[in-house]
C-alpha cells in the first residue's frame, strides 16, 4: 500500500478524526506535527477514526496525519529480555534518556536495540529446506537463555546463504533461494496470535511454591487463572510472588494501568531478585511492561496485546512462559473509556458489547503447544481482575470466569486478619484438579490428592461449625467438633498462611508442602484417637508439640525439626491421660 498523508479533522481527547487517509483498520498512523503514535480504530465515510497513544493537547484540525501502512507491531528478536517497556514496547529507560523524568510526546524508540551486535551461530546449512518456525540459528541472549532465531511464520524455502558471526538484528543472516533476505528481527502485529502446530492437554502443574495454590488450587502449565480481588486484598503482592517463584523460563509482567510507585517498586526490586534455581538475576529472564494508570489510555489498551505477543515469541522457541496481567480490569476500563469516546452503544455497565470476545481472544492465546518446529512451549496466564467494591457479579469478572480454569478468590476479610496469601479456600477452585493428579501421584506422593481432600473436608466442616459458633459460642459444641475447629485452625494458620516476606516461608517445595500437611493430619488422627480414649479436648489442645509444629515451616532445612516434633507428638499422645 502506498503510504500517504491525511489531515486532522477533529480532536476530542484521545480520539481524533482525520480525512484523506487510505489506511486499513488497526494500521498505525502518526498524528500531528509531533507525530503522535496512533491507531486506526474506525472508518466512517471519508473519515478515519484514530485512537492516539499519547496526550493530544495542542493538536489542531488541519495538522498532518502520516500513514505507516502497517498495524501496531512488536519488534521481536534478541534483546527483549531484561527490558522494561511502556504499553507500546518503548523501552522506558530509553525514554528517560530521550525526554527526562516525565514522558513527553512524539517519541519513537525501537523496542529492541538495532545497533547492538549479537553472536549468531547457525544450525542450518546451505541447501537445507527450511519451514516456518524452524530454527535457523541461535544467539546467547542471556547467560542461561539461548534465543532461537526462527523462520518467520508463513515463510519457507531453501537456504542459499547462511552467515555466522556478529550481527545487528537488522543484518541479513540468511538468504533463501527465492532471494528473501532474513534478518534476526521479526515484526509481528500484536493483535494477531502467533501460530503453533497444536495445543496440548494441561497435564503438568506449574509449581509456584505457594501452599494454598500448589496444594489446593493448582494451575497447569499453559493454563489460565484469574485473581479477582477488590482493592486491598493482596492481589499485587500475590502476583509478584508468583512471578518470583513459578517454575517457568520466562516471565512477562504486564502492569496495565497500575500504580507508578508500585511499578517503581517492581522495577527496583525485580533486578535485585535472584532466581532460586540458578542464582542469576531474575530480570535476565523477564520482560516488564509498565503502563501506569496516568499514562495514555490507548497505550494501556495495547499493552496486553504487546505483552502476549512477546510471550508467544518465546513460547515458539520452546520456553515455558508465564504472563501476568495486572490488571485486566484496568484493561477493560481502557476499552470502556475508548468505546465511550467513540460513542459506541454501551453494553453492561458501560462496557462495550465486545468485552467478552476481547477477553476470550486474549486468554485463548495461552496454552501448552507443539510449536511450528515441533518442540513444546507454554504460556500460562494469570490475570488479575479488580471488581468494583469486590462485587464478583460485575461484567469483567463474570466474563473472565467463563474463560479461566482456575480461580483464586482473594478475600479482603482474610487480608484484614493479615492472613496471606489471602486466597479464600472455600470459594476458590481449580478445574485442573483431576488432569494434574497423575503427575502428583508419580512425582510427589500417591496420597497427594487424598490428603488434600481430607484437609478440604475439615475446612468445609469448620465453615459450617463456625456458623454455629457465631450463634452459640464454641463451648456449646461437642468435644469432637471443638477439636475439628482447632485442627482447621492449624491448617489455616500453619499451612495455608504463608509469608511472602519471610525468607524461607516465601517458597515451599512440593515435598515440604506435603510433609507439613501430613503432619497436621497426623496430629488430627492422634487427637481424635485420644478423644476416643476419653481424654478431654482442652488437655489435647495443650499438647506442646502442636505449637512447635507452627514454626517448622519457617525452617529451610525443616526435616530434622519436623521429625523431632512428630516424635515428640507421638510420645506426648502416648503418655497423655
Amino acid at each position, binding site marked *: 500500500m502506498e503510504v500517504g498523508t491525511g489531515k486532522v479533522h477533529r480532536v476530542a481527547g484521545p480520539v481524533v478524526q482525520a480525512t484523506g487517509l487510505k489506511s486499513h483498520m488497526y494500521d498505525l498512523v502518526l498524528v500531528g506535527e509531533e507525530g503522535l503514535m496512533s491507531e486506526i480504530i474506525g472508518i466512517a465515510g471519508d473519515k478515519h477514526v484514530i485512537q492516539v497513544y499519547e496526550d493530544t493537547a495542542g493538536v489542531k484540525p488541519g495538522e498532518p496525519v502520516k500513514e505507516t501502512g502497517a498495524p501496531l507491531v512488536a519488534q521481536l528478536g534478541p534483546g527483549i529480555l531484561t527490558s522494561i517497556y511502556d504499553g507500546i514496547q518503548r523501552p522506558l529507560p530509553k525514554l528517560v534518556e530521550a525526554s527526562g523524568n516525565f514522558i513527553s510526546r512524539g517519541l519513537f524508540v525501537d523496542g529492541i536495540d538495532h545497533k547492538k551486535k549479537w553472536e549468531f551461530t547457525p544450525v542450518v546449512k546451505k541447501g537445507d529446506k527450511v519451514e516456518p518456525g524452524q530454527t535457523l540459528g541461535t544467539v546467547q541472549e542471556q547467560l542461561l537463555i539461548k534465543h532461537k532465531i526462527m523462520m518467520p511464520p508463513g515463510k519457507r524455502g531453501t537456504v542459499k546463504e547462511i552467515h555466522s558471526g556478529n550481527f545487528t538484528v537488522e543484518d541479513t543472516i540468511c538468504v533463501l533461494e527465492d532471494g528473501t533476505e532474513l534478518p534476526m528481527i521479526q515484526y509481528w502485529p500484536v493483535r494477531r496470535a502467533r501460530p503453533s502446530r497444536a495445543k496440548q492437554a494441561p497435564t503438568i502443574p506449574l509449581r509456584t511454591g505457594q501452599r494454598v495454590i500448589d496444594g489446593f488450587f493448582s494451575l497447569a502449565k499453559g493454563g489460565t487463572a484469574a485473581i479477582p480481588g477488590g*482493592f486491598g486484598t493482596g492481589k499485587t503482592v500475590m502476583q509478584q510472588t508468583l512471578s518470583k517463584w513459578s517454575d517457568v523460563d520466562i516471565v512477562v509482567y504486564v502492569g496495565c494501568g497500575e500504580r507508578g*510507585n508500585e511499578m517503581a517498586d517492581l522495577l527496583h526490586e525485580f533486578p535485585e531478585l535472584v532466581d532460586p534455581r540458578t542464582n542469576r538475576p531474575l530480570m535476565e529472564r523477564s520482560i516488564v511492561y509498565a503502563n501506569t494508570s496516568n499514562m495514555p489510555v490507548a497505550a494501556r489498551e495495547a499493552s496486553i496485546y504487546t505483552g502476549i505477543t512477546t510471550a508467544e515469541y518465546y513460547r515458539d522457541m520452546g520456553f515455558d512462559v508465564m504472563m501476568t496481567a495486572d490488571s485486566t480490569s484496568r484493561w477493560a476500563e481502557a476499552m470502556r*473509556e475508548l468505546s465511550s469516546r467513540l460513542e459506541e452503544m454501551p453494553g453492561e455497565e458501560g462496557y462495550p458489547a465486545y468485552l467478552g470476545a476481547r477477553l476470550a481472544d486474549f486468554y485463548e492465546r495461552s496454552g501448552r503447544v507443539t510449536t511450528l518446529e515441533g518442540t513444546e512451549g507454554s504460556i500460562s496466564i494469570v490475570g488479575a481482575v479488580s471488581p468494583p467494591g469486590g462485587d464478583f457479579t460485575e461484567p469483567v469478572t463474570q466474563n473472565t470466569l467463563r474463560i479461566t480454569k482456575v480461580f483464586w478468590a482473594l478475600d479482603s476479610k482474610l487480608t484484614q486478619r493479615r492472613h496471606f496469601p489471602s486466597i479464600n479456600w472455600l470459594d476458590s477452585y481449580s478445574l485442573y484438579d483431576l488432569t494434574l493428579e497423575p503427575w502428583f501421584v508419580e512425582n510427589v506422593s500417591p496420597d497427594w490428592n487424598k490428603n488434600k481432600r481430607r484437609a478440604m473436608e475439615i475446612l468445609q466442616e469448620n465453615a459450617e461449625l463456625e456458623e454455629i459458633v457465631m450463634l452459640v459460642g464454641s463451648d456449646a459444641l461437642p468435644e469432637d467438633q471443638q477439636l475439628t475447629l482447632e485442627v482447621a485452625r492449624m491448617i489455616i494458620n500453619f499451612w495455608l498462611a504463608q509469608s511472602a*516476606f519471610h525468607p524461607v516461608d516465601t517458597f515451599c517445595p512440593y515435598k515440604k508442602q506435603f510433609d507439613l500437611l501430613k503432619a497436621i493430619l497426623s496430629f488430627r488422627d492422634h487427637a481424635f484417637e485420644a478423644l476416643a480414649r476419653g481424654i478431654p479436648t482442652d488437655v489435647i489442645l495443650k499438647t506442646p508439640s502442636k505449637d512447635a509444629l507452627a514454626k517448622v515451616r519457617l525452617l529451610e532445612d525443616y526435616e530434622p525439626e519436623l521429625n523431632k516434633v512428630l516424635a515428640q507428638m507421638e510420645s506426648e499422645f502416648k503418655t497423655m491421660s
Partner: protein
Amino acid sequence: MTKEYKTINEIKGPLLFVEKTEPIGFNELVEIRTETGELKRGQVLDTSNEVVVVQVFEGTGGLGKESTVKFTGDVIKMPLSPDIIGRVLSGSGQPRDGGPPIVPDVSKDISGAAINPAAREKPRAFIQTGISTIDGTNTLVRGQKLPIFSGAGLPHNDVALQIARQAKALGEAESFAVVFCAMGITNEEAQHFMADFERTGALERAVVFLNLADDPAVERLLTPQLGLTTAEYLAFDLDMHVLVIYTDMTNYCEAMRQMGAAREEVPGRRGYPGYMYTTLAIQYERAGIITGKKGSITQFPILTMPGDDITHPIPDLSGYITEGQLIVSRELHRKGIYPPIDIRPSLSRLMNSGIGAGHTREDHRAVSDQLYAYYAEGCDLRGLVAIVGKEALSERDRLVLEFADAFERKFVNQGRDEDRSIFDTLDIGWNLLSALPETMLTRIDDHLIKKYHPRYRKKE
C-alpha cells in the same frame, strides 16, 4: 497572532460552541470577554473544522452571542516562583488574599505529564505522623498517596490537619511545604482550615487553593491540577518535601459528572464519565519521588463517601489508584474515639518498604500484624457476644475480646495535639499484647518476643 471571535453559536450549561474559527488546538486556553468587559477563562474540549467546544471555568453567566472569544494558542499554565509559598489563591489560581499577582519565574503546563516509571524512586522514607493508627499499623511513606475515606459529619478534616501539623521524617530537618487544595468545601470548613494554618504558623510554608461551595463547579476541575503543578515545582525544582492535601475529591468528581452530562457524553457507572478513572489517576499519580531529585510529593486526598458506601465509584476507583486508604469510622466516632480510624479496612500499601530495622524498628511488621489479627478477631467476637453473652465465650475468646476493647481505648484513641513517636506507638502495642499469653503471639518471632515483650524488658 491570536484572533478574537464573535461566533458563539450555542451556550449550554458551562459549554460554549464557537463556529468558523481558524484551526484551534485541543485543550487550548481560551479567554472570553462579556459585553460588560468581564473576563472569563475556558479550555477547548473538542475541536474540529466546524465547531470548537469550550468549557468555561467561571461559569457562563453573563455570556451571550455578542461575547468575544479569544484563543490563546497555548495550553493552561501555572505561573510559579518561590514567592508562591504563603499565598492563598482561588480555585483557578488567581490571588484570593488581596496580594499581587504571582510574577512567574517559570510557567508550567498544568496537565501533568506522566512520570516515567523507570525514573521513579521507590518510596521508602518513613513519615511519622504522630498518630498511632497511621504510624503503627498503616504507615505512611514519603511519595505515597494515601486518601482518607470518610463520611459526612466525621472529623476527617481534623485528622488531615493533625497530619499536616505533625508529619516529619525521623531525625531530619528538611524544607517542607504544604499545598492545600479545597474543592467545593463550605466557607465554614475553609475558615476552620485557615484558622488552624494560622494558629500553627503552617501558612508560612503553605500554598492554598480555595474553591468554595459557591464558586463555579467547573473551576474545581482545574484546582487539583494547579495545586499539583505547584507541588511539582516545589518538589522537583526547589527540592522541597511537599504534602498535598485536597478536599473534597467527591466534589471534584461531581463536577466531572456535571461536565460530562453537559457534553451529552455516554455516562458510565452512576452517571460518572467513563474516563473518571484515568482523570483521577492523572491527579493521584502525580505523587512520588524522582531518582536524583531531593524533593518528594506525598498526597492526602480526602473524600467523603456518599452514604458511607465504599463501593461508590469515587472511593472505589480512588482505591485502585492510591496506595491504600484510611477509613474514618462512624462507629468509632460515636464511641467518642479520636481519631476514629478503623484499621481493619484501612491499608497502607507502601508500609513494608518504610518500616523495620533501619526505618522504624525491627519488630514493627510483626507487632502490627499481631495487633491487626486480634483486633479483627475481637471485633468479630463482639457480634457473637451480642447473641450469646460474654459468659459463653472460651477463655481465649474473652482475652481477645478484652484486647479489642483496650486496643480502641489506648492505641486508637489519642489527643488532637498528641504527637506520639513511633517507639511510643509500638510500646503501646506491646503493652496491649502482653495481656495475652505468649503462646498466642503466633505472628511474632521468638527473638523479637524476647527482646521487646514487656515481661522480658523489665528484667533488663
